[in-house]
């Protein structure tokens, strides 16, 4: 049956999904026929008007994507990273937020090498880890090879249903030495936010003041894998959710590290969860090489602490410089 034949069938008499008059026609044919009927009728020009000229190509791509998804015909890596889903869905959803809402200016992207392992270390802020997601977008959309950032996430992420699943599919894994080293040795771009909950859940008054950088585990991993460390400073995320208070008792009851009280949350309900449209800058600094140290340098606590401090100071100073340059929080 062709689309030409389909044209003569009026829309009203298109075969219904479960019509008893056509029980022998397979589901695929019935569905195809009804769509053909629609497109041949008024829906065709309408679709073109609404969706644009090349809607057919895009629909064909979408169908091919759908076909792979519903038949399970796609690849994930050992960490559960689903590259297709990340590129087609997750990054597509992040892009308008990054480009239109936060109007992120990405600087120093040339400091991310085009290939090979690298550890990106950034400041953490803004109640929700939007800064991490935006860094993932920045690295994917701005590096020539469209590299994927593999983040090391807090263990809370993987305890929670749905969130843990999405994090794995987006390429992230648990922040532990084994995973960090395995990813770096595979030549991936690994992202770490060493301040953790101390950084993301700090009061608004402490904005842009870097918290303690964990125990330096990330530096040890980079030393073992002998990959450079790229300090990354993010400005703008602090003001997305100004955290004025912290409902500590309720947070403890819910088993979360903090429960923010912002000017809008929880007073406006779900509306309060909308981030403020601040203007962001993500600055990647010059890489700090680690390959001049021998591999066993990771066992030298003094060296690890010194390198940790160097990374921390670089990020802090860049933050101050970017803040001075900034005209306004929102523009």
């Amino acid at each position, binding site marked *: 049956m062709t689309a030409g034949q389909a044209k003569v069938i009026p829309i009203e008499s298109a075969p219904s999904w479960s019509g008893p008059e056509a029980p022998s026609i397979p589901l695929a044919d019935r569905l195809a026929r009804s769509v053909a009927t629609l497109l041949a009728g008024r829906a065709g020009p309408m679709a073109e008007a609404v969706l644009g000229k090349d809607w057919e190509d895009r629909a064909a791509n979408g169908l091919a994507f759908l076909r792979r998804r519903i038949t399970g015909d796609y690849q994930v890596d050992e960490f*559960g990273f689903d590259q297709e889903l990340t590129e087609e869905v997750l990054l597509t959803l992040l892009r308008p937020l990054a480009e239109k809402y936060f109007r992120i200016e990405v600087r120093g992207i040339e400091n991310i090498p085009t290939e090979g392992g690298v550890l990106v270390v950034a400041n953490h802020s803004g109640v929700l880890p939007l800064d991490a997601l935006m860094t993932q977008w920045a690295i994917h959309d701005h590096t020539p090879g469209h590299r994927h950032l593999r983040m090391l996430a807090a263990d809370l992420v993987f305890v929670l249903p749905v969130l843990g699943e999405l994090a794995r599919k987006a390429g992230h894994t648990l922040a532990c030495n084994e995973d960090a080293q*395995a990813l770096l040795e595979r030549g991936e771009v690994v992202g770490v936010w060493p301040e953790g909950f101390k950084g993301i859940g700090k009061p608004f008054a402490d904005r842009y003041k870097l918290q303690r950088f964990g125990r330096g585990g990330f530096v040890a991993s980079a030393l073992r894998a002998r990959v450079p460390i790229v300090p990354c400073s993010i400005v703008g995320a602090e003001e997305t959710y100004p955290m004025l208070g912290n409902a500590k008792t309720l947070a403890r009851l819910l088993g979360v590290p903090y429960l923010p009280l912002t000017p809008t949350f929880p007073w406006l309900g779900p509306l309060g969860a909308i981030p403020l449209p601040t203007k962001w800058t993500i600055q990647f600094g010059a890489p700090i090489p680690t390959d001049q140290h021998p591999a066993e340098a990771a066992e030298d606590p003094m060296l690890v602490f010194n390198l940790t401090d160097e990374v921390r100071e670089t990020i802090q100073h860049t933050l101050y410089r970017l803040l001075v340059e900034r005209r306004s929080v929102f523009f």
Partner: protein
Amino acid sequence: MGKVVLVTGVARQLGAQFAERIRRQPGVELVVGVDLRPAPQLPPPQPGDPVADYVFAPVDLRRPAIAGVLAEYGVDTVVHLNVSATNPGAVGRASVKEINVIGSMQLLGACQQSAQLRRLVVKSTTGVYGATSRDPAVFTERTQAKTLPSGGFAKDAAEVEGYVRGFARRRPDVAISVLRFANLVGPGADTPLAEYFALPLLPTVLGYDPRLQFLHVEDAVEVLRRAALEPAPDTVNTGTFNVAGEGVLLLSQCARRLGRPTLPMLGPALGWAAALAKQTRVSDFSAEQIGLLTHGRVVDTTALREVFGYRPRYSTTEAFADFAAGSGPGLLPPGRLAAVTDRLADLLKRPPEES
């Protein structure tokens, strides 16, 4: 004089296939099969077929009689495959555990006394690493489990591995391989996970999509064969090795490839459903299986490839495809779903003037 190989657990698919394979190995003189029941599928050898003799010894490993078998046949290689999640000769978790743990202790005790013994191969499971949200994504042989398996087959395997380490200290002259197998699949695989995938609707844990790895039975047999013989040049076949097909499949991918719809359930509800199935003996679905279906488990197989010197012929995807081909069609066959999108795509390709 050739090798005398003793294989435990020959009543099960893996044991039977391995016994069959090792009989065809040049240099093997006699294969002794041990289990409660004889192996079901050993075909009679063709005349002129160079196969080693096969003797079946109906021994309950929980009793000390196994020492007599080792001495009687002069066994020099023991391949212990009897640590399993279920046992065809036993009903109920308690007796399975007894066969797994007490049986292994008896066997190791007998091995310790045997002067001829040169080589011991023990089948274990990647389940010994556990499966929690706090574990690294990829386990290497050196990774310590964050929490020891709380029960079930994985706990048995972890305990057996402990006894094997004790045995290794007492008999340093015996070459020991511990092989941690991922989920075995293949045509007619008789494992709990294969039973799970045979359900018409697959219950899953809502909000989790675990990463799974599979090992084809043929690869398992080949790895056992190599471990039971002298190592090839430049390889080492003693020690502990993770054995799994390369690559990873998500549970959702497995379900779609099988064409079986999933039934996402809240974690605790799935636990109750599993307990109910266990009570009513519909299916023996342990807490450890639920852990696997929640957080998944992936092991690193670099040591298998580079030290042991074997690259599994079937990747995880291929092993699962072979298993899927052998299992019945599901309610949503991927072929039919693909036909729908293909038809739609065909319609789009036609130029609009034609219609």
